[in-house]
């Protein structure tokens, strides 16, 4: 398969188990998604490498359960690949579509499973060397005090790295509402510092 968008825009730099992904532009991501819709596995692989860290991080932070997060991210990818023809690039990236599926999966998991979530913070901290422990502890404490809606919008904004328009698409609200909710969440978070 001839991939014309090389050199790779998705730069993977492994630091232990942590992966840092260089930001992929909307056009690049849409191009890869279009190619993946035609059966290009290489394009899909690049998308996987670029999106999976965010997706897994989002699932982990949402579900607070490593096993559950792995199940959800796998289910998300399998559903997305199985229904990749449904993806319509209407101003949002492929990752936004993927996060919408993941959010739906997470909600289904919350509805079907009743066991207490395991706080993954300490595991995360043990695996990570950056950023610093105090800062992460502070943010986690703040997020725990926020409402579900506020926490979700910050997760989509800072873990999934979605734009307000994409967040609006994922949450099925208007872009203005997404922007306002995000600002309110940050304002609320500032009170707990």
């Amino acid at each position, binding site marked *: 398969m001839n991939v014309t968008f090389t050199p790779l825009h998705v730069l993977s730099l492994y630091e232990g188990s942590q*992966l*840092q*992904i260089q930001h992929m532009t909307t056009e690049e991501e849409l191009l890869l998604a279009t190619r993946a819709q035609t059966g290009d596995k290489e394009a899909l692989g690049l998308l*996987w490498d670029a999106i999976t860290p965010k997706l897994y991080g989002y699932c982990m932070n949402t579900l607070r359960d490593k096993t559950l997060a792995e199940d959800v991210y796998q289910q998300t990818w399998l559903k997305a*690949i199985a229904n990749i*023809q449904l993806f319509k690039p209407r101003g949002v990236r492929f990752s936004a579509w993927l996060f*919408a599926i993941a959010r739906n999966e997470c909600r289904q998991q919350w509805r079907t499973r009743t066991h207490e979530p395991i706080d993954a913070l300490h595991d995360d901290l043990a695996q990570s060397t950056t950023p610093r422990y105090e800062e*992460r502890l502070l943010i986690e404490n703040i997020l725990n005090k926020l409402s579900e809606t506020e926490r979700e919008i910050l997760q989509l904004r800072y873990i999934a790295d979605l734009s307000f328009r994409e967040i609006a698409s994922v949450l099925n609200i208007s872009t203005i509402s997404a922007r306002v909710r995000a600002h309110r969440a940050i304002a609320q978070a500032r009170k707990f510092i």
Partner: protein
Amino acid sequence: MNDKLHHLLQKWGQGQRRMPENNDSEKIRALNTLHIAEQKVAVQSPVRIPWLALTCTGLAVLIFFIQKAPSPTRTAQVASISEGASLKSVSSGFNSVGFSSGLSAQEPSAMQKISRNFADYFQPTPASDTREFLKTDYRTTMKTRNIETLGNRIQTIVRGYGGRIDSASIQTRTAYISFVVPKKTFDAFKAELKTLVPERFMTESIATQNLLPEKRLIEEKTDMMSGLLAEHKKNRDALEAQHHETATALQRQLYGVVAEMKALRAEVTIDPTRQKQIATRLTTLQSDERRINRNLANENMQYNSKRVMLDAQIKDAEDQLTNLDTRDQVLGNTVETVQGSITIDWISIPKIIGLYMPKDWPSLLFLGFGIMAFLSYRRRRMAIKLP
């Protein structure tokens, strides 16, 4: 603070991103399922056209242009009104300057008189004359749900401000009241009228016109007629004096002739020569007496004829002055009063709502619906379809 929190959240978000432990195996497993997706027939959803938004917008545009388009009936009415107004102004011009001299012998033809008066009336007023004789016309239209109450109340107010009702017609759906109020109470009267209905339910127009040209015309005519009257009186006096002098001279001659005749007839003489002289002289004197009487009769006749003509001229001039004085008083009254009319129309509830809405509210309403429909359509179209 905000930047610091944003920075912390960004670092936190980056810290949350990581690859799962079994990433490679899961990736291979997932990618292997892609060939199944490849064989799936792509479900091509038909392009959905936002019919509701387009319909609403189309209706908005249609209504907008229908409202903006001039009505042929309305245009015709406006044309006829303006034509009538111009005719009225010309006729009023004739009326205001239609003074008759009353001198049939010296009178110009009617058309000449009209054209002369017309030209006089439209003589430009010099800029140095800054006097104002403002005639005020007040017209207002009110809308109400209770015609009779409002009509009666307006009549009471007119009378309360020292005015009079000229005509009033109150029906179930409309009313018309024409009135005159003194100018000094007009402002207070107008302010009270405005308290009767809300501002949006009332339209008023005040037209003022300076009657200085008419005033100047009256003044000029008065001066001219006064001069003419004085001249006629002077001529009459001269005629009377001349007649008196002529008649006196003739009468003096007549008295002399009669006295001589009387003396000759009283003279008693037997002298035939003298008797012949007396007879000859009496014959001459009788002839003179007849001539003088004839002259005196002619003088009286001429005097009477001229006197009648001058009296007629004087009377006509006096009548003209009286007429001018009346016109001056009428003008003064016109300036001191305000003529007005109030039309009261019944208003329906939808029209009341329309008064408080923008002028193009139907098209704006449909445009709003159109925008809402389009936003809804766009939101539905942009919504992510989940598998």
